[in-house]
C-alpha cells in the first residue's frame, strides 16, 4: 500500500516546475507584495518575522493556543495522583558514602540531616557535569532573550527564543535532580506563565480593537506609544513575540516535567 501511495506521488511530481525557478506560481501572487512593502510599512528587515507576526498574526495566535492546549493535555493525562501503591523512597547516608537504605512508610519523615534523598536510578555525584551545567545555564538564558529581542534583524523571533529558554531549565533538570529544578521554578509559576503568554498576545489584539481599528492591526497602538504608525507596528511585533516566547517556554518545561516523572514529580532523569 505504501508503494502505491509512492507511485501516485511520483506521478503527480511530473507536473512540477524545475528546481528553483523564479517564475513558478508559488512566487507570483502574494509574496512580491510582502517582500517589497514590508520594510516601508513595518520597518522590520526580517521579512519572515514581519509576515508571521503582523500580516499573518491570526495564525500565530492560534498556534500559541495550540501549544498551550498541548501542555494542558499532557498535564491532564499524567498528573492525576494514584494512591494504590505505598511510596518507596530511598535514602543515602552522606557520611559513610554508599550505604543505601530502602524505607517504606506512609508518613513522610521530615528533612533529615544525615540522609539525603536519592532517586531510583541514581548516578553518583559528578562534579564536572554539575558545575559545567550550572555555569552554562545563565548564558543560555541570556542567549534566549537575545534571540527574542533580535527577531527583527536576524533569524530568530519568539518561538526560537522561547524554546531556548525552556531548554535551559530542562538542562538544569537533567544535570541535577528534578527536585532541584522544581525548587528553582515551581509548578505553579510555570503553569501560570503559560496562559499569561497567550493572554499577552490576545490582549494586544483586543487592545487594537478597542482603540478603533481591526483586530491585531497594530497601527492603533500609535496613540498609546506616541510614535508614528510604522514604528508602532514594529513595537507591536515585539510585544507579541514576547508573549509567544513566554508561552512556548512554559509549555516546554511543563511537558518535560510531566513526561519525565510520570506525574508524580518525585524522580527524574
Amino acid at each position, binding site marked *: 500500500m505504501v508503494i502505491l501511495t509512492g507511485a501516485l506521488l511520483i506521478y503527480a511530481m511530473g507536473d512540477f516546475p524545475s*528546481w*528553483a525557478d523564479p517564475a513558478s506560481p508559488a512566487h507570483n501572487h502574494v509574496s512580491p507584495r510582502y517582500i517589497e512593502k514590508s520594510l516601508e510599512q513595518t520597518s522590520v528587515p*526580517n521579512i*519572515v*518575522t514581519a509576515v508571521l507576526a503582523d500580516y499573518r498574526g491570526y495564525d500565530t495566535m492560534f498556534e500559541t493556543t495550540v501549544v498551550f492546549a498541548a501542555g494542558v493535555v499532557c498535564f491532564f493525562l499524567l498528573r492525576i495522583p494514584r494512591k494504590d501503591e505505598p511510596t518507596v523512597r530511598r535514602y543515602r547516608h552522606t557520611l559513610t558514602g554508599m550505604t543505601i537504605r530502602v524505607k517504606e512508610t506512609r508518613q513522610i519523615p521530615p528533612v533529615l540531616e544525615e540522609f539525603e534523598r536519592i532517586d531510583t536510578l541514581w548516578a553518583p555525584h559528578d562534579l564536572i557535569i554539575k558545575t559545567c551545567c550550572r555555569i552554562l545555564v545563565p548564558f543560555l538564558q541570556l542567549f534566549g532573550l537575545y534571540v527574542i529581542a533580535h527577531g527583527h534583524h536576524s*533569524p*530568530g*523571533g519568539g*518561538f*526560537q527564543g522561547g*524554546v*531556548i529558554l*525552556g*531548554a535551559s531549565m*530542562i538542562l538544569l533538570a*537533567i544535570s541535577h535532580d528534578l527536585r532541584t529544578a522544581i525548587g528553582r521554578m515551581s509548578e505553579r509559576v510555570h503553569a501560570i506563565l503559560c496562559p499569561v503568554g497567550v493572554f499577552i498576545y490576545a490582549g494586544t489584539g483586543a487592545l487594537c480593537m478597542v482603540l478603533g481599528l481591526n483586530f491585531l492591526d497594530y497601527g492603533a497602538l500609535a496613540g498609546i506609544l506616541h510614535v508614528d504608525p510604522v514604528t508602532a507596528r514594529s513595537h507591536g511585533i515585539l510585544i507579541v513575540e514576547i508573549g509567544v516566547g513566554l508561552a512556548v517556554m512554559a509549555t*516546554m518545561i511543563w*511537558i*518535560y516535567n510531566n*513526561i*519525565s516523572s*510520570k506525574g508524580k514529580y518525585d524522580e527524574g*532523569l
Partner: protein
Amino acid sequence: MIWQLDLAILTLVVIAAIGAIAIKDLLGSAILFGAYSFMMCLLWAIMGAVDVAFTEASVGAGVSTVFFVAAVFRTTRRTKD
C-alpha cells in the same frame, strides 16, 4: 545551491531515517532521530530558509530528542520489532 553537497546530505538523511526505524533499541532510535533532525536543519540552511533551520535546530535536535529520551526512560528500552 551546490548539488554535490545537496546530494550528500540528502543521502545521509535517508540513511538516518531508515536507521531510526529499523534499529531494535529504542534509545538508539531516539538518538538517530536527533541526527536526522540536525541533517534536516543543514538542508534548510543550504536552501536559504534560516528561520526554519534555526527553529528546527532548537526544537527538533534539542527539545524533541530530550522528550523521546525521557519517554524511553520511563518505559521499556528493548523492542522486538
